[in-house]
């Protein structure tokens, strides 16, 4: 079965640089979520989109932005990177209505040096 695809798998950036993470949801899933997971931490919700519109916002810094495109893929744009942004970034998708589980990709490991 098709899964959530994230790219790149690994990314190394320097402080103050920018980064773009991409997410391709499971086909026919209309809702995309972004989570950040620090070492030994639980995933923290950043932002979500339903039908290309932002549906909820969590602890996402103002330096970050995201969008969902017409083909339902999503991109997380991160600017003015800080050392503390080093983390695993997960994208998840689900069918938007009712109770259904989020399906996660294998994440992008961002390292800021």
């Amino acid at each position, binding site marked *: 079965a098709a899964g*959530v695809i994230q790219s790149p798998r690994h990314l190394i950036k320097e402080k103050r640089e920018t980064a773009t993470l991409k997410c391709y949801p499971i086909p026919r899933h*209309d*809702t995309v*979520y972004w*989570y950040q997971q620090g070492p030994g931490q*639980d*995933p*923290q*919700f950043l932002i*979500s*989109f*339903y*039908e290309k519109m932002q*549906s*909820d916002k*969590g602890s996402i810094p103002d330096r970050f932005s995201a969008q969902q495109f017409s083909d339902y893929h999503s991109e997380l744009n991160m600017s003015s990177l800080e050392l503390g942004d080093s983390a695993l970034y*997960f994208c*998840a998708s689900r069918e*938007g*209505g*009712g*109770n259904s*589980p*989020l*399906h*996660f*990709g*294998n*994440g992008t490991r961002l390292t800021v040096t």
Partner: protein
Amino acid sequence: GESVGLHLPTLSVQEGDNSIINCAYSNSASDYFIWYKQESGKGPQFIIDIRSNMDKRQGQRVTVLLNKTVKHLSLQIAATQPGDSAVYFCAEMGAFIIQGAQKLVFGQGTRLTINP
């Protein structure tokens, strides 16, 4: 506020034994609960879910129990295998109000180690 937590950060079990991982949640409005398994370098993997109108649900070797009175959730894994070693997270989701606007809140994970 919303919070989902686990009682123990680590749990070691002998291979073949049963394991129980516990989770407490504080948001009484939570409507839907999911257990995820996360292996090193991978994303959270769906194991089993349960809706608030149920108190028990069984899958293959796994059972989730929900006690809404004390806001407690547990995951039972039967006949544990080495491949069960991972970090397990419980997560909760609020009631459906607006299409696409439900977010998943994770609790702190429990690292399960299966000893041979």
